[in-house]
């Protein structure tokens, strides 16, 4: 079996899973839908590993394989087939995506049990994994765009999974609309590139790019900026980020999979994949780097003030992806992807822990009401702690190595990149702060009522009436709303296996990229980035100083969080009261939603009202339709007046007609 065959099988397994679940969702009993879905992704992951092995068996120069299954369009202008590209980058991505998805499927088997839409959930989840795998395996722009659109659709379906909640459906629509904006950017960017290369195939494009584009030319810069628009929308960077916090309306496994580990990393993958084009457009690279830096800072500050635990983790995701985008835009490709992998591990773990926490709280997601869960949920606490330590960048956890790798490589570029370097470390401080804010508030302190109930009775708290955690609306547990069961990790073995596996990976995952010792990931990804013109090699000083600085900042931020939220209760409120404007800014998410509302939504709504009320009524209905019908009716009235009903009048007309005919013949002769 060759690497490409294995890659096609990687795609085939979730496709089969989706079809089986979608067609049989009414008849699958109990949790079998979950096991089928998990099995499909497990098969996919197995084939991903096979692909990896087969690829590594080839020599490094030959590790770029293209395979076309059939020709979709073969015209004089466009030549596109169903093509996949198997190279280290895509194999890396499919291993990460399939592996993390498999664990999240396993988690969901228990987490969502009892929900009326159980089978539907797994069908959607499998569809999502299929789309994401298609996106990263795409060998031409067509497949990429198709995969891109599909993941957007899957995201919409999954965010609005509990579709009877209005908050969920509006969040789904918001996510989809912003994603479509990104789709437009992606497609337009493709056009700009296609105009010159006349090919959709990725490998050919990258070979032709240096020949047809002068460095910094307008077309390639415009194309790359538009591709960046697509990346920002999908990866929730400023200003197209407002959908991600609202996307937390979806079930927690969805947040873990899509909005932490995989879909939001599609932008990072895009920039890494298109690096030959980006290197011809330094301006676009700079835009990406700056936006990544800004996002990581802004999202970090909002994370300090958010109250819903899932939203804190969502802003954390936004911030960490800012790191990744900054990294791949600045040329640190392997480092950015390394952070993508470790982030997938610990962020999915954090979300899983949050899911267990929320289940223990009976569906409540607010940090204000959680406290002292440490003794009630020991396993969850352990996993959450591991994830938080990895996120904050404490050695020897994986996040430490990946984050510092990015920052060291950015620093090695010198010049104004030092600003990004500094922003990165400021962001690291913020990361430690908001992460352990979560940990200390939820797990430390006096146990809350729900925790007490769990400790005393051993049963998790169960609310009398299920309510929507976002707006407190009362709901039921029928289809379209969450099910009646709240499953905590301590009670469900599948959840424990999944969380345990991720905790282990979060702990030891950094081993693939320890600087100066193991550079396995760098070596693995090197063939994909062999044609890069940037070769960043930070000096040893920079690396070691960076590692030390990272450790110091992480530890001190955790200590500061301890002081504020554990040692001196009430200090957080004092600080907030001292700088009310800043606090308001953070709580209101820097007013981005209001800004977009004023700049985009209101004018669009006004235009819609204008079009319907004025333009359509006056111009289209009144003038065009009314006018043309009035003309026709006037004409008919004129003609109708000839039908007077008088016989003699008709006779007169006949006589006149006769005379006219005779006159014609007379004149003719």
């Amino acid at each position, binding site marked *: 079996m060759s690497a490409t065959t294995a890659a096609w099988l990687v795609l085939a397994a979730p496709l089969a899973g989706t079809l089986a679940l979608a067609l049989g969702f009414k008849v699958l009993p109990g949790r079998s839908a979950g096991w089928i879905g998990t099995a499909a992704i497990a098969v996919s992951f197995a084939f991903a590993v096979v692909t990896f092995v087969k690829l590594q068996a080839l020599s490094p120069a030959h590790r770029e394989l293209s395979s076309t299954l059939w020709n979709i369009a073969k015209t004089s202008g466009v030549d596109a087939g169903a093509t996949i590209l198997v190279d280290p980058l895509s194999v890396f991505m499919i291993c990460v995506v399939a592996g993390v998805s498999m664990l999240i499927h396993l988690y969901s088997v228990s987490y969502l049990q009892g929900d009326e839409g159980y089978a539907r959930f797994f069908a959607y989840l499998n569809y999502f994994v299929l789309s994401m795998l298609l996106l990263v395996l795409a060998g031409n722009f067509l497949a990429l765009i198709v995969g891109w659109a599909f993941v957007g659709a899957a995201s919409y379906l999954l965010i609005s999974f509990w579709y009877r909640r209005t908050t969920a459906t509006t969040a789904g629509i918001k996510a989809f609309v912003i994603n479509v904006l990104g789709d437009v950017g992606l497609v337009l960017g493709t056009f700009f590139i296609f105009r010159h290369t006349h090919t959709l195939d990725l490998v050919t494009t990258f070979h032709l790019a240096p020949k047809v584009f002068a460095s910094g030319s307008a077309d390639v810069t415009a194309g790359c900026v538009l591709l960046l628009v697509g990346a920002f929308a999908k990866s929730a960077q400023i200003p197209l980020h407002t959908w991600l916090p609202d996307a937390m309306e979806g079930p927690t496994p969805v947040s873990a999979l899509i909005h932490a580990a995989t879909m939001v990393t599609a932008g990072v993958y895009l920039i890494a994949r298109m690096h030959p084009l980006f290197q011809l457009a330094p301006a676009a690279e700079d835009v990406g780097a700056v936006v990544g830096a800004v996002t990581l800072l802004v999202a970090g500050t909002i994370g300090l003030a958010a109250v819903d635990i899932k939203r804190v983790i969502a802003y954390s995701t936004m911030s960490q992806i800012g790191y990744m985008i900054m990294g791949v835009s600045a040329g640190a490709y392997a480092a950015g992807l390394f952070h993508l992998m470790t982030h997938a591990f610990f962020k999915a773990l954090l979300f899983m822990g949050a899911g267990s926490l929320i289940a223990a709280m009976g569906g409540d997601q607010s940090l204000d009401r959680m406290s002292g869960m440490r003794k009630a949920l020991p396993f969850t606490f352990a996993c959450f702690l591991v994830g938080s330590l990895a996120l904050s960048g404490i050695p020897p956890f994986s996040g430490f190595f990946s984050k510092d790798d990015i920052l060291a490589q950015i620093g090695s570029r010198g010049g104004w990149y030092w600003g990004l370097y500094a922003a990165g470390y400021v962001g690291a401080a913020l990361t430690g702060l908001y992460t352990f804010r979560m940990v200390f508030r939820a797990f430390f302190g006096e146990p809350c009522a729900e925790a007490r109930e769990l400790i005393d009775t051993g049963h998790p708290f169960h609310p009398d009436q299920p309510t929507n955690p976002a707006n407190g609306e009362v709901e039921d547990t029928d289809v379209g709303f969450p099910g009646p069961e709240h499953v905590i990790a301590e009670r469900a073995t599948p959840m424990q296996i999944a969380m345990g596996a991720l905790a282990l990976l979060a702990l030891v995952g950094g081993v693939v990229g320890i600087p100066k010792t193991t550079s396995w990931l760098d070596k693995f990804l090197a063939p994909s980035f062999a044609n890069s013109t940037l070769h960043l090699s930070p000096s040893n000083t920079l690396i070691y100083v960076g590692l030390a600085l990272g450790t110091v900042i992480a530890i001190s931020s955790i200590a500061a969080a301890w002081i504020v939220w554990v040692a001196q209760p009430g200090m957080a409120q004092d600080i907030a009261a001292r700088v009310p404007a800043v606090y308001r800014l953070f709580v209101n998410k820097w007013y981005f939603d209001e800004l977009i509302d004023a700049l985009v939504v209101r004018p669009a709504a006004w235009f819609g009202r204008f079009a319907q009320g004025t333009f359509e009524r006056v111009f289209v209905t009144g003038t065009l339709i009314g006018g043309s*019908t009035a003309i026709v009716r006037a004409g008919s009235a004129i003609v*109708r007046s000839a*039908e007077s009903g008088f016989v*003699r009048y008709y006779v*007169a007309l006949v*006589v*006149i007609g*006769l*005379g006219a005919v*005779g*006159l014609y013949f*007379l004149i003719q*002769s």
Partner: protein
Amino acid sequence: MSYVVFFIAALGTLTGAIGVIALKDPFYSVLALVVHLVSLAVLFMLLQAEFVAAAQVVVYAGAVMVLYVFVVSYIGGQNLPGAQGPGRAGTLAAFACAGALLVELFIAVLGSGLKAIGTGGAHVAAGFGNPEAIGAFFLTKFLAPFEIASYLLLLAAVGAVTLARRRGGLESGIEEPAPRLSVAEFMRGRPYYTGTQHETLGRPESLPPSRVKEPAK
């Protein structure tokens, strides 16, 4: 000699024609037409179409006009409405039309390049308009029109009987006096929108009040 006869006959023709259109009483119009027909027969004889002249008198003036007289007597004459004309403008327009047609016909016939109409006609044998000659034609060259014409007569006879047929026997007689109706009354028995354009256009004033609806867009 023939000139004199011609002029008398011509005069009779024209007088009769003018009498038809000018006389108020339909009965007198019928009589004027009889005069016209007989004068026309004389003109035919002058043109050596003796058989046609005879047929004219016998069939036309004899049978058709008698039929007319019957109907006019049946229907009545002077007490009919419609005795007055269409008014000055209408009459003027009508005579303008007719005059234009006349001028055109004159130009067509007399102004054409036919030189033969300036002569008295081609040389003909003695039995030109005889029944013998016409009859021979009817049975040889014009057999088909002859047969078709007789068929047409049959149709007309059947048609006339059908049209004037009484429905429902003698009891539903025409003896009882009834108010004057208009055609619309008879057409109203049909369901709506199966009638004339007048109805279909939904003119409210032509419909009974209970079914008036807003005008069609």
